[in-house]
């Protein structure tokens, strides 16, 4: 189960809307207790596919005429290294990553599956004509054949005190 607050989901949705029609991406940081991954922080990251030359260096696209930042995301490993180091120093772990599917459902694609790692939560936001619609979280099956839908619990904002 992945637990995040309504405010954290809002940060993801705003990022997804701001990047449309490109895909957005970011990291989910927090801690795992038993079967529950509780998100403590959501951090937007840069989609390296916006810089095709550098992105191609790390992970070449098979069909550059069909693939771009509109249907692909890639996280800069240098930024990832810095982010992971900073998170570790603060006692947080990488629970997974989020990304958007502009004008596509919040279901993982075959490309998502080929590039997925076990255990991580992959939160996908469907963005329809610039408006974030639904978000679902997925975990790769142990045999890599498919993704399993992960229970996503959104904690409501606490009422203001005083």
């Amino acid at each position, binding site marked *: 189960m992945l637990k995040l607050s309504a405010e954290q989901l809002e940060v993801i949705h705003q990022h997804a809307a701001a990047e449309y029609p490109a895909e957005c991406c970011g990291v989910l940081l927090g801690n795992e207790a038993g079967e529950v991954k509780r998100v403590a922080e959501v951090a937007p990251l840069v989609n390296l596919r916006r810089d095709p030359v550098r992105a191609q260096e790390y992970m070449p696209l098979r069909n550059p005429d069909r*693939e771009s930042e509109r*249907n*692909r995301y*890639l*996280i800069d*490993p240098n930024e*990832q290294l810095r982010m992971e180091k900073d998170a570790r120093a603060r006692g947080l772990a990488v629970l997974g990553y989020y990304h958007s599917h502009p004008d596509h459902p919040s279901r993982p694609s*075959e490309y998502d599956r080929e*590039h997925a790692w*076990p255990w991580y939560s992959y939160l996908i936001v469907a963005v329809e004509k610039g408006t974030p619609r639904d978000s679902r979280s997925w975990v790769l099956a142990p045999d890599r054949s498919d993704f399993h839908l992960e229970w996503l619990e959104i904690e409501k904002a606490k009422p203001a005190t005083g």
Partner: protein
Amino acid sequence: MAVKVIIPTPLRQYAAKKESIDVEASTVGEALSGLTTQYSGLRRHLYNEEGKIRSFVNVYLNDEDIRYLSKEQTPVKENDVLSIVPSIAGGAPSSRAVSGSILRCICS
């Protein structure tokens, strides 16, 4: 020489849930092979069938990507930190091109 290898969260289940593991090695390649000898479940996630480091795996020696050093032959020294950084990539199905080709079929 002992170097510390940082294990990313998805691979900790194959490394006794540890966040980092100290291994004796004089090169990056030795450190990684020492690691997969101790924890054999890590092997298929780090190496491809030809025994090369998978392209989806980035390895950093301290803050440097080993691709820009001497790759697996890069020497390591006492107290160096080796980080395994998994490539994170994905994206929506590329249906724009698919619908484009359907359109071309209808037109021709």
